[in-house]
């Protein structure tokens, strides 16, 4: 087994979020009609950081919401362990807003698909843009990110692990690690 | 027709013969008991290692014919009785129509004789149609072949009418069997009223429904100097009342069922409707008292209250499923397992409770004992055999037993009724 390799450290993550903040502002020509929705759990943390960056750059407050996509997952009845449903808190109307959807890792695209369905149940936004910290490829749906912190080419035998201080209580980092053989076998079994 | 039983350990109520003996049967009668009997051309049956009882007598069964032949018939019920080791059964009158006149008694006797597997004695009703209002023609019932009367399934609720029934029946020589359950106190409870019914939210039958009638009937019997036989006693308090009555010399006798000395109301927790029975399964304390009563003779005999019901009926919800369970085929196994193995009864006491006492109570002079000149009704039991109650082995038409799946010790090997083998285990 190869050692896990650190792709981003604390500073690199900070810089990536900051760059995405600039890109969001540039593309949307400021904060007018803008709002941010983070996908639980780490997307929500990144959404808060993004909002903070935007405040520092523009001096403007952008509303932030949290989305729990559990109930919209397409594999709800397939997975062994049933995920706990947590609250969604979007305390503003997203209709006619420009929504920046934030997640940590973009992989198959299924989470984003679920999030889009959920968002649309909340209202009819003017548009939805996607910001992710990591894009690791291997899409299974026609979904792409508008803002990417870092592209990391990976194999399916690898895991991308995002550590954020707010939820993990240790220093930020992004690590790529090999998946154990057991985990891979279990996956293969499921697909049969 | 003759039969020779070799190497029999004979268990009579008064004595267990340690030495194996031979029993010669001719024309339905035991003609000779002794060692080394030989008889040319006689069918020989070797009972070595088995226990040989006088034919068992069940004073309380429901054969359902006429009226509910879908549950049981005299034929299927007789087969179940023979398999259970019984040679005489008293069948209760809550058939459709009720056994309240000579014609029905005769019809039952005729069919039972045709089947010929067990001595069936119909119990006539105390009141016409068991409606609790007017007495039956008791002399007519007696003449037709009844030995006892009962409104079983119901209590004679009207105390004055019960008094009159006791007085009138005494004159006929018939004795009364009371189903003890005050109908108002009972209130159609579906299980024992107590901690378990509270948790399960099922309507409870408070034990006092039984004991107030036990008390009433004891007082009536005392006052009238009459006999009363109390059916299927289920409570500690009933045993105490009967013990007291007997100590006073009151002519009371009583019976108890295997399920009441085996199961408690905890069994209802499964909501298995086969545990729904009337009187209901009671508490551990009651079970222990019933055993104690059987041990000291307060309870005279063991009966099955064999009550067949169809699977469809028992598949209903607990409130609506009918009361009752079958019992003929498990009585010996449960008695040996729960009473003899646990040192509650000796083998001779088992012979007393299951044969001699019921014969005495019912007035069957030549039954309940193995002796020269007695009827050749014999039950041979393997005391060591362990077997499992299996649904597919039940020969009764109905299979409503909560004991299915249970392992029992003690099995009927052979039943002989009137000198004829009516059951032989394979």
């Amino acid at each position: 087994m190869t050692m896990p390799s650190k792709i981003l450290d604390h500073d690199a993550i900070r810089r990536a979020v900051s760059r995405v903040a600039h890109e969001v502002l540039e593309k949307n020509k400021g904060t007018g009609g803008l709002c941010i929705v983070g996908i639980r759990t780490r997307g929500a943390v990144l959404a808060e950081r993004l909002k903070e960056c935007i405040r520092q750059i523009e001096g403007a407050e952008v509303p932030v919401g949290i989305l729990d996509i559990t109930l919209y997952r397409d594999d709800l009845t397939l997975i062994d362990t049933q995920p706990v449903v947590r609250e969604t808190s979007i305390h503003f109307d997203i209709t006619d807003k420009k929504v920046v959807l934030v997640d940590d890792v973009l992989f198959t695209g299924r989470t984003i698909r679920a999030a889009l369905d959920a968002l649309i149940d909340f209202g009819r936004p003017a548009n939805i843009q996607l910001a992710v910290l990591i894009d690791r490829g291997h899409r299974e749906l026609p979904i792409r990110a508008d803002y990417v912190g870092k592209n990391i080419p990976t194999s399916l035998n690898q895991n991308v692990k995002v550590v954020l201080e707010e939820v993990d209580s240790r220093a930020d980092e992004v690590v790529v690690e090999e998946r154990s053989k057991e985990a891979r076998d279990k996956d293969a079994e499921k697909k049969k | 027709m003759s039969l020779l039983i070799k190497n029999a350990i004979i268990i009579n109520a008064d004595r267990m013969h340690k030495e194996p003996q031979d029993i010669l049967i001719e024309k339905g009668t035991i003609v000779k008991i002794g060692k080394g009997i030989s008889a040319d051309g006689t069918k020989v049956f070797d009972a070595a290692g088995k226990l040989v009882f006088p034919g068992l007598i069940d004073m309380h069964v429901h054969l359902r014919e006429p009226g509910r032949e879908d549950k049981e018939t005299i034929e299927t019920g007789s087969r179940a009785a023979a398999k259970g080791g019984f040679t005489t059964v008293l069948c209760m009158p809550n058939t459709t129509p009720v056994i309240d006149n000579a014609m029905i008694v005769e019809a039952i006797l005729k069919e039972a004789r045709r089947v010929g597997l067990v001595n069936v004695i119909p119990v006539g009703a105390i009141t016409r149609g068991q409606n609790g209002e007017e007495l039956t023609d008791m002399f007519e019932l007696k003449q037709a072949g009844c030995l006892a009367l009962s409104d079983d399934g119901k209590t004679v609720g009207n105390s004055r009418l019960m008094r009159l029934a006791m007085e009138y029946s005494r004159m006929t020589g018939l004795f009364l069997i009371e189903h003890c359950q005050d109908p108002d106190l009972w209130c159609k409870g579906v299980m024992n009223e107590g901690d378990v019914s509270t948790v399960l939210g099922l309507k409870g039958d408070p034990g006092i429904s039984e004991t107030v009638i036990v008390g009433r009937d004891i007082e009536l019997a005392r006052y009238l100097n009459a006999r009363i036989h109390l059916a299927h006693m289920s409570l500690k308090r009933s045993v105490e009342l009967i013990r007291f009555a007997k100590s006073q010399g009151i002519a009371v006798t009583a019976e108890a069922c295997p399920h009441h000395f085996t199961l408690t109301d905890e069994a209802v927790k499964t909501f298995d409707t086969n545990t729904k029975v009337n009187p209901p399964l009671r508490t551990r304390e009651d079970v222990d008292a019933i055993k104690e009563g059987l041990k000291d003779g307060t309870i005279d005999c063991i009966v099955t209250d064999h009550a067949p019901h169809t699977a469809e009926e028992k598949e209903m919800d607990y409130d609506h499923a009918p009361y009752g369970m079958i019992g003929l085929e498990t009585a010996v196994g449960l008695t040996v397992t729960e009473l003899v193995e646990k040192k509650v009864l000796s083998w001779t006491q088992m012979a007393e409770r299951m044969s001699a006492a019921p014969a005495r109570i019912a007035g069957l002079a030549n039954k309940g004992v193995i002796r020269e000149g007695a009827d050749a009704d014999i039950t041979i039991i393997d005391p060591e055999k362990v077997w499992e109650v299996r649904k597919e082995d039940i020969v009764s038409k109905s299979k409503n037993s909560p004991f299915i799946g249970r392992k029992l010790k003690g099995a009927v090997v052979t039943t002989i009724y009137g000198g004829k083998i009516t059951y032989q285990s394979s």
Partner: protein
Amino acid sequence: MTTEWTHKDLLDVKDLSREEIELVLETAKSFKEVSARDVKKVPALRGKTVVMLFFENSTRTRASFELAAKRLSADTINISAGGSSLSKGETVLDTARNLEAMNIDAIVVRHPSSGVPDVLARHLKAVVINAGDGCRAHPTQALLDLFTIKEKLGKIDGLKVGIVGDILHSRVARSNIWGFNKLGARVTVCGPSTLMPPGVEKLGIKVTNDIDELIRESDVLMLLRLQKERQENQFLPSVREYAKRFGVNQERLKQAKKDIVIMHPGPTNRGVELSAEVADGEYSVILDQVTNGVAVRMAVLYLLLGKGKSKVEEGNV
């Protein structure tokens, strides 16, 4: 949270652990939020079929379950005793087997006889949810009551709860007693002695006939519906006397703690177990109970129709 949800069915609160009850309450919080949205529907149980099998009238519970199932995108069918072949002599089990042959996923059953849900659960592959059986259990009512109290008072542990009325015939009381016991509340039941089940104190609760003392002590007062037929069946001299002796009105409530919570499983008999002012008053949470009922039932359906154990899953999806 790593509580495992291992039950195939929901039959009684008695069968649940403290942790499992808390999991339901926690999950229900999220569903309450869903019910507050403009689009009150999530696709979680899309493709699942839930049968409402009601052998006893109940507009409220059935509507609540149906709403819960629909908000989770499950399909629902209603079968009530009057319209089904049950009235034509079919056994309960037969009805259920027939339903299962149609590949349904869950049965929400209410029956006037205790134990019917247990028997169905034992014989069917489908999930069975008890929506009230006889006098024995009404688990979702107890769970929604716990949820409502937790929402109002922030905790259950250590609270003093009074349950007033016909305890003998109340499945709501029984399920709540189990729930409160497991979550550490102290329960006192109060009512006429003729309507107290024998040995109820052995469930670890107190029994009293003194409503005023109970009102003074309680943090939560749960009033049960008094069925009119209890008078007909001689359990009570009169409904009038019951109302005077055990009914809760403004006057009586003056002795209560400042933040007492008044609950009722509904439908209320105003003027009998409680006065209209109390039912509509500041302490009453009766309508919150109704609102929370949907959320709790969504949580129950979600937990039962999902698979295996429930725990937080993170990762690369």
